[in-house]
C-alpha cells in the first residue's frame, strides 16, 4: 500500500533490509518472517506494549547523497510489498536517471507516490456524484478551459514525457479531448489534444520508455508512462478516439448520448469505481461485442451474462458456456469455440420453467431452466448458480416485450396500399428464371440439400437452430442454391431485422418510387449494369425488383443513399431470396457486416483496405513490400470487398464466399483475399508495374470455377480455369482462418479508422485551401491558420453533410455565432462599438443562399476584403452590405422612429438604435438555426428581392461567394442607397475611423458632402429611376452581369412595374449611388490610405489559436 511520503531518520533500527537499489530500499520489521533472533522478539514485544502495530513491511526512498529517507509504501504481507516493489522497479526506476539532480528525483518520487495514493483513494469512492468526482470535473473544466458540456470520462495518474523529462501528473480523458496537467518542480505542464486530431495510438515498450502509450497527432508525438492501468487506459483512449472519428464520418452532432438505460443494466457487471460516463462506454462496448457475436440488431443492449450449460439433444451432452440476456434475446455461446451457439428471440418464447428432473437429484441438472418456444422446441440450460434470479429476469424481459405491435401495423398497411402501388414483391428470382442445369449439377445440388435437411433435422431450423461445428463444415462446402435465401437470412441475422420491422419494406417502396431524387437517378443508371449475365436482369421483372430494393434502401438510410456496388450485391441477393428478405440482407450488409462501406466517402472500405494492408504486411511481408513498391497495396482489392467478389469472379463462385461471409462475418473476405494473394505470390513478385500485377490477379479471379452450379455468362468463358471455388474457400480457412479472427479485424478496424478519417479530413482541408487561395486575398499561411480556427470553431457544432459538395470549402459552414467569433477576432472592421452590427451586415453579404450559414470561403473573403483588397473594393463591400434588401426595411424599422429628427446631420446618434437591428438579425438567424435543411421556407426574400440580393453580392465581391473562384468578375450593377440605409453605412464608417482624428474628420467631410448630394436627389418629380425601387431595374439593366439562365427571371422582374407604394415616405427618393460614395470617399486621401492599408491578421490568428490549441506551457 502506498503511503504519503514521510521522512524517517533511523533507517536500520528495528528493521532488516531485504532488497536495496540505488533509490529504494525494501525493509522488513524485525520479528517478522525469517529472522527470529532475540532482538526480533524484543521488537515484537515493544510493538505490542506500545500498541502501535506498524505494518511489518515497508519501502523507503533515498538518494545516494542524502541522509533523509522517505517511507513510501507499507504492507502487512510480503506478497503485497513485493508487488509494490516490482511496480517501482518496472515503472519508476528506469525513468529516474533522466533527472539532473537528486532533489528532482526525490520530488518526482514523492509526487508520484502522492498521486498513486490519490488514485487509490478514489477507487473506494462509489459514484460520479461523489465530491471527489465533482472536484476533478471542476478542475478539468477550469484548467483546460473546457466548455460546460464537455464530459470528463476518466482520469489517470501518469507521467508525460516532455522532451527528456517525465512530468508526473494527471491524464484526463473526456469525450472530445485528452488532456494532461502537472505541476512539478515549480512548473506547469498543460497538454490538450483533440481526439479528432489523433492519428495513431500505440502501446509500446522500449528500454527508455517502458510500458508507455504514445499518442500521435499531426503536430507530433506524445508519450505517457507509468500508468497504473495501462490496458484500461489504452482501451478507453481508443474507444474515445473512435467515437470522434465516427462523428467525423457520419457528420453527426458531436454529442454522445449517455445511455442511461444501458448503464443501469450493466452496472451490475462493471466495476464500480469508474465515472458515470466511463461505465456507460464500457457498457456500450460490451453490448457491441455481444451484438457482433450473435449478429443481433445493433440497438440490442446486453443485460447480463451467466455461466451455465446448454443441453444439446443431437449429441445428448451438456456443454459449458455462457448465457447472454438482452431485451429481445437469450443467447448462448459455448466455452469451446464454435462448438455450439444459440439464439432465442424472446418473442418466440412460450414458456420458461424451472426444470428439476423429478427429484432424481442428478447434479448435472440442478439449477436448470427449460425454455419452450411457440414452435414447440425446448432448450435446456443447466448448472445455473442463481436460477431464481435468471428466471425472474427472463420473465421481466418477457413482460416488457412489445405486444406484437408489428403484426397489427402491417395488417393495416397491406390493406391500404397494395392497390395504388401496383407491385408485388418477387419470390427468389431463380425460381422464376430457371437456369438449365445439367444432370450432374442437379445431383450435386440434391445431395447437398439432403445433407442440410438431415442436419437441420438434428439442430433445428430457423433463428434458433443450434449453430454447430458440423454446420460450419457444411457452410464451407457451399450451401445448396435452394436453401441460400433461408440460411443467409438466418446466419446474417437479417431475419431478425425483418421480423422486427414488418411492413416497413412495403411502406418504403411506395414512398421511394413516388419520389424523385438524385439517388433514384443514379440507381436507374445502374440497374442494367448490375448482373446483366443473369436472365432475370435481362427482364423487367428482375430490374423492377432491383429498383425497388435499392430505392427503398436509399430512402431508409440517407447517410448511405445509393452507392455503386450495392446494385451488384443486391442483384445476387434477389436471385436467391424473396424480395423483402433481400432488402433486409442488404441492410444488414450495409449496417452491420460492412459498416460504413457504402457511405458518401466509402470510409469503411478504405478502412478495410488499411486492415488488409496490415494483415498482408504481417502474413506476406515480401509480397507487401512488392505491392507497396508498385503503389497498389491500397487499391488492389477495393472492388473485391465492395462487391463481395461478385464483380471480379464469376458470380456462381462468389456466392460460395458469401455463404461463409454471412456465417462468419467480414473476416472471410480478408482470409480469402489473403489466400488469393498468397497463391499468386510468385507471379506477383515478378511483376514490374501495376498493370501487370492487376492482370495476374484478374486472370486468376476470372478463372475460378464452380462445377457444382450452373455458369450463367452468355459470353463464352475465355479465362483459363484456375481453381475450384470450394477449394479456394477451404484453403482460405486452412491457411488464414485461425490467424484472421473477427476480434482481430474489429481491433484493426479501430486503428485504421483513425488514419483513414484523418487522411480524408486532410485532403478536404488541402482542397479547401487550394480553392481559397484563388481569391488572392489572404496569403497561404493565413488561410491555413484561418482554416484551423474554423475547424476548431466548428468542432462543437453540427457539421454539414459532406455529400454533394459543390466545392470543398462548403464542408466548412459557419452559422452566425461562429462567424462572429472569428470575424470579430480577426477583422479590423469589427473592433469598435458597432462591431456587432458590421459583422451582421458582412455575414448577410456573404450568406449567398440565405440559409444562415457562411462557408469557409465566405469567411475568408470577408476577412480578406477588410484587410487586403484595394480601397475601392473594400468600400464597395461596405456599401453593398448596407444596401437593400440585404439591410431590410424590417431591420431598419424599429430604429427609424427615433431617428427622424437628428439623423440628417448626425449619424452618430444611431449608435444606440443600431443594437436592435443586429439583434433582430441574430434572432432571425437563430430562428433558422436548425431549419437549414429546408432552405426555401427560410428565405426571407421574395423572388424579386432574392435577385436583387444576388446582384448586390455580385457587385460587392465580383463573384458571389457561392460561385467557384477563378471566373472573372462580371461588371456589376450599382444599386443606390436610400437614406436610412446610407445612415447606417455612415455609422459603420464612423466606427471604423473613430480612433484617429484625421480619419474621423475625413469621414465627417465626406459625410457632409454625401448628405448634400443625397438631398439634391430629394425632389418629388425626380426621375423614378433613382428611387429605392429602381434597384431591381438597375440590376436588370445589366443582364450581362448575371448568369445567362437567370435572364428569364430577371426580365420578368423588370417587366413588372415597380411595386407601387401607396403612402410614400418623404425620404423615399433620397439616395446615394455607389459612384457618388466611392468618388467622395476616395477623394479624401486619408481615407484612401486607410482603406488601402494591408493588414496582416497573423497575430490575431495566433491569439485566437492560442485559445484552444494544443499548448504546453513550461
Amino acid at each position, binding site marked *: 500500500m502506498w503511503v504519503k511520503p514521510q521522512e524517517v531518520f533511523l533507517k536500520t533500527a528495528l528493521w532488516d533490509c531485504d532488497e536495496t537499489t540505488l533509490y529504494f530500499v525494501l525493509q522488513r520489521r524485525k520479528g517478522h518472517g525469517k529472522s527470529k533472533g532475540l532482538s526480533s522478539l524484543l521488537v515484537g514485544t515493544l510493538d505490542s506494549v506500545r500498541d502501535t502495530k506498524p505494518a511489518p513491511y515497508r519501502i523507503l526512498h533515498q538518494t545516494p547523497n542524502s541522509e533523509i529517507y522517505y517511507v513510501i509504501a507499507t504492507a502487512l504481507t510480503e506478497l503485497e510489498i513485493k508487488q509494490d516493489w516490482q511496480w517501482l522497479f518496472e515503472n519508476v526506476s528506469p525513468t529516474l536517471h533522466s533527472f539532473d539532480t537528486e532533489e528532482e528525483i526525490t520530488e518526482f518520487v514523492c509526487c508520484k507516490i502522492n498521486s498513486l495514493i490519490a488514485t487509490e483513494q478514489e477507487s473506494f469512492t462509489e459514484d460520479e456524484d461523489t465530491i471527489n468526482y465533482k472536484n476533478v470535473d471542476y478542475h478539468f473544466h477550469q484548467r483546460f478551459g473546457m466548455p460546460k458540456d464537455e464530459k470528463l470520462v476518466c482520469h489517470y495518474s501518469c507521467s508525460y514525457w516532455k522532451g527528456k523529462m517525465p512530468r508526473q501528473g494527471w491524464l484526463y480523458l473526456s469525450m472530445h479531448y485528452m488532456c494532461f496537467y502537472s505541476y512539478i518542480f515549480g512548473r506547469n505542464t498543460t497538454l490538450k489534444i483533440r481526439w479528432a486530431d489523433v492519428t495513431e495510438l500505440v502501446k509500446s515498450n522500449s528500454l527508455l520508455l517502458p510500458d508507455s502509450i504514445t499518442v500521435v497527432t499531426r503536430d507530433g508525438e506524445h508519450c505517457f508512462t507509468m500508468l497504473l492501468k495501462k490496458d484500461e487506459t489504452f482501451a478507453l483512449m481508443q474507444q474515445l478516439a473512435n467515437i470522434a472519428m465516427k462523428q467525423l464520418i457520419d457528420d453527426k452532432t458531436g454529442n454522445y448520448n449517455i445511455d442511461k438505460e444501458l448503464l443501469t443494466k450493466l452496472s451490475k457487471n462493471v466495476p464500480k469505481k469508474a465515472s458515470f460516463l466511463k461505465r456507460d462506454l464500457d457498457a456500450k462496448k460490451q453490448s457491441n461485442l455481444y451484438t457482433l457475436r450473435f449478429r443481433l440488431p445493433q440497438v440490442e443492449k446486453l443485460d447480463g451474462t451467466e455461466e451455465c450449460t446448454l443441453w444439446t439433444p443431437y449429441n445428448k451432452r451438456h456443454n459449458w458456456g455462457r448465457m447472454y440476456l438482452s431485451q429481445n434475446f437469450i443467447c448462448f455461446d459455448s466455452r469451446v469455440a464454435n462448438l455450439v451457439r444459440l439464439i432465442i428471440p424472446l418473442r418466440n418464447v412460450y414458456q420458461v420453467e424451472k426444470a428439476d428432473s423429478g427429484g432424481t437429484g442428478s447434479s448435472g441438472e440442478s439449477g436448470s431452466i427449460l425454455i419452450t418456444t411457440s414452435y414447440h422446441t425446448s432448450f435446456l440450460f443447466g448448472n445455473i448458480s442463481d436460477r431464481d434470479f435468471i428466471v425472474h429476469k427472463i420473465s421481466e424481459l418477457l413482460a416488457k416485450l412489445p405486444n406484437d405491435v408489428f403484426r397489427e401495423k402491417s395488417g393495416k398497411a397491406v390493406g391500404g396500399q397494395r392497390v395504388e402501388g401496383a407491385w408485388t414483391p418477387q419470390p427468389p428470382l431463380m425460381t422464376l428464371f430457371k437456369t438449365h442445369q445439367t444432370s450432374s449439377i442437379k445431383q450435386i445440388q440434391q445431395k447437398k440439400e439432403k445433407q442440410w435437411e438431415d442436419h437441420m433435422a438434428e439442430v433445428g431450423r430457423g433463428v434458433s437452430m443450434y449453430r454447430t461445428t458440423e454446420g460450419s463444415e457444411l457452410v464451407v462446402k457451399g450451401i445448396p442454391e435452394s436453401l441460400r435465401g433461408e440460411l443467409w437470412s438466418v446466419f446474417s441475422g437479417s431475419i431478425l431485422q425483418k421480423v422486427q420491422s414488418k411492413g416497413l419494406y412495403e411502406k418504403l417502396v411506395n414512398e421511394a418510387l413516388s419520389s424523385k431524387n438524385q439517388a433514384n437517378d443514379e440507381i436507374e443508371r445502374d440497374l442494367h449494369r448490375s448482373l446483366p449475365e443473369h436472365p432475370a436482369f435481362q427482364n423487367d421483372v428482375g430490374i423492377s425488383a432491383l429498383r425497388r430494393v435499392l430505392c427503398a434502401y436509399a430512402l431508409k438510410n440517407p447517410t448511405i443513399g445509393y452507392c455503386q456496388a450495392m446494385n451488384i450485391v443486391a442483384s445476387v441477393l434477389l436471385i436467391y431470396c424473396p424480395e423483402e428478405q433481400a432488402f433486409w440482407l442488404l441492410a444488414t450488409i450495409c449496417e452491420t457486416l460492412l459498416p460504413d462501406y457504402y457511405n458518401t466517402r466509402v470510409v469503411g472500405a478504405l478502412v478495410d483496405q488499411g486492415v488488409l494492408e496490415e494483415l498482408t504486411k504481417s502474413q506476406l511481408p515480401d509480397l507487401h513490400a512488392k505491392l507497396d513498391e508498385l503503389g497498389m497495396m491500397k487499391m488492389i482489392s477495393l472492388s473485391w470487398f465492395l462487391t463481395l467478389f461478385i464483380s471480379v469472379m464469376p458470380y456462381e463462385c462468389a456466392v460460395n464466399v458469401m455463404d461463409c461471409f454471412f456465417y462468419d462475418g467480414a473476416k472471410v473476405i480478408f482470409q480469402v483475399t489473403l489466400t488469393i494473394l498468397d497463391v499468386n505470390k510468385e507471379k506477383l513478385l515478378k511483376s*514490374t508495374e501495376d*498493370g501487370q500485377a492487376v492482370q495476374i490477379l484478374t486472370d486468376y479471379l476470372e478463372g475460378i470455377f464452380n462445377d457444382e452450379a450452373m455458369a450463367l455468362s452468355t459470353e463464352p468463358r475465355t479465362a483459363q480455369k484456375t481453381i475450384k471455388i470450394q477449394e479456394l474457400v477451404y484453403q482460405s480457412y486452412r491457411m488464414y482462418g485461425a490467424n484472421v479472427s473477427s476480434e482481430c479485424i474489429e481491433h484493426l478496424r479501430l486503428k485504421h479508422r483513425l488514419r483513414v478519417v484523418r487522411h480524408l479530413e486532410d485532403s478536404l482541408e488541402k482542397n479547401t485551401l*487550394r480553392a481559397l487561395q484563388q481569391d488572392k486575398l489572404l496569403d497561404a499561411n493565413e488561410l491555413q491558420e484561418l482554416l484551423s480556427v474554423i475547424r476548431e470553431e466548428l468542432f462543437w457544432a453540427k457539421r454539414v453533410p459532406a455529400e454533394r459538395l459543390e466545392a470543398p470549402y462548403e464542408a466548412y459552414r459557419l452559422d452566425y455565432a461562429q462567424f462572429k467569433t472569428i470575424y470579430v477576432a480577426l477583422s479590423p472592421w469589427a473592433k469598435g462599438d458597432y462591431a456587432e452590427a458590421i459583422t451582421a451586415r458582412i455575414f448577410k453579404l456573404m450568406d449567398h443562399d440565405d440559409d444562415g450559414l457562411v462557408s469557409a470561403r465566405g469567411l475568408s473573403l470577408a476577412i480578406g476584403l477588410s484587410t487586403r483588397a484595394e480601397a475601392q473594393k473594400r468600400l464597395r463591400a461596405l456599401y453593398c452590405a448596407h444596401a437593400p434588401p440585404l439591410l431590410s426595411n424590417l431591420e431598419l424599422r424599429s430604429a427609424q422612429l427615433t431617428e427622424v429628427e437628428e439623423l440628417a446631420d448626425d449619424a452618430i446618434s444611431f449608435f444606440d438604435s443600431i443594437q436592435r437591428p443586429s439583434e433582430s438579425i441574430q434572432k432571425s438567424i437563430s430562428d433558422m438555426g436548425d431549419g437549414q435543411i429546408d432552405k426555401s421556407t427560410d428565405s426571407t426574400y421574395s423572388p424579386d428581392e432574392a435577385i436583387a440580393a444576388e446582384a448586390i453580392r455580385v457587385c460587392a465581391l465580383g463573384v458571389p461567394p457561392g460561385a467557384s473562384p477563378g471566373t472573372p468578375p462580371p461588371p456589376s450593377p450599382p444599386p443606390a442607397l436610400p437614406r436610412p440605409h446610407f445612415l447606417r453605412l455612415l455609422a459603420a464608417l464612423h466606427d471604423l475611423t473613430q480612433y484617429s482624428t484625421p480619419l474621423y474628420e475625413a469621414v465627417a467631410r465626406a459625410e457632409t458632402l454625401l448628405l448634400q448630394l443625397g438631398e439634391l436627389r430629394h425632389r418629388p418629380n425626380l426621375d423614378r429611376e433613382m428611387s429605392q425601387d429602381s434597384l431591381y431595374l438597375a440590376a436588370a439593366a445589366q443582364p450581362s452581369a448575371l448568369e445567362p439562365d437567370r435572364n428569364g427571371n430577371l426580365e420578368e422582374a423588370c417587366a413588372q412595374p415597380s411595386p407601387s407604394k401607396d403612402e410614400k415616405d418623404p425620404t423615399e427618393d433620397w439616395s446615394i449611388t455607389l459612384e457618388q460614395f466611392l468618388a467622395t470617399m476616395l477623394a479624401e486621401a486619408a481615407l484612401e490610405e486607410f482603406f488601402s492599408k494591408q493588414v496582416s491578421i497573423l497575430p490575431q490568428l495566433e491569439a485566437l489559436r492560442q485559445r484552444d490549441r494544443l499548448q504546453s506551457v513550461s
Partner: protein
Amino acid sequence: MSSRKKVLLKVIILGDSGVGKTSLMNQFVNKKFSNQYKATIGADFLTKEVIVDDRIVTMQIWDTAGQERFQSLGVAFYRGADCCVLVFDVTAPNTFKSLESWRDEFLIQASPRDPDHFPFVILGNKVDLDNRAVSAKRAQQWCQSKNDIPYFETSAKEAVNVELAFQTIARNALAQETEAELYNEFPDQIKLNANDNNRNRDGDNCAC
C-alpha cells in the same frame, strides 16, 4: 540509334458515371458494344497493341468508377499516366459541366511535369442518340479554351470515331512519353530499360 524498344502507354479514362467510358474502351479494344457489363467499381484496365508511326505501342487503358464517392479513390492509378481521356455524354449537360473538375483533379493528383501541355483528349459520347443536349460547338469552344484539347464526337454503340479518337490518344501519349524520356537523367534511363525487359510479358520480344 535504337529506340525500337516496346513502349507501354498508360491512358486514364475519366468522366461521370454512365457516360460510356467502359463501353468506349471495350469498343476500342474488343470491337464490340455489349450490354453485358457491370458498372465499374474501383478501377479496371484493358490493353491493346496499336501502331503509331510505324512503332508498335501497347496501350494500357485504365477505366475508373465514376460515381462521386469513388472519385478520390482512383487517384492511385493516375500516376505515370501518358494521356488522360475525359468523356462526357452529349445528351447529359451535367456530365459536360463536370469535365472541368475532372481535369483539375487529374492535374492535381497526377501532377505531371508540364501540366499546361499534358495531353488530354475529350470525347463527347453517345452521338447516336437523338436527344442531344450539348452542341458540338459548345464542346469545341471549351476545348479550345483549354489549350486546344483535341475533341471527338463518338458513339461506342455504333463505333463512330472510336478508332480515330484512340489513335490520336496513342499518338499524343507517345509524344508525351518521348518527351518525358528526353527529360530523364541517364541513370533513370537505364532503369527504364531494365523495366522494359521484364515488361514483355510474352517474352518473345527483346530490346535490341
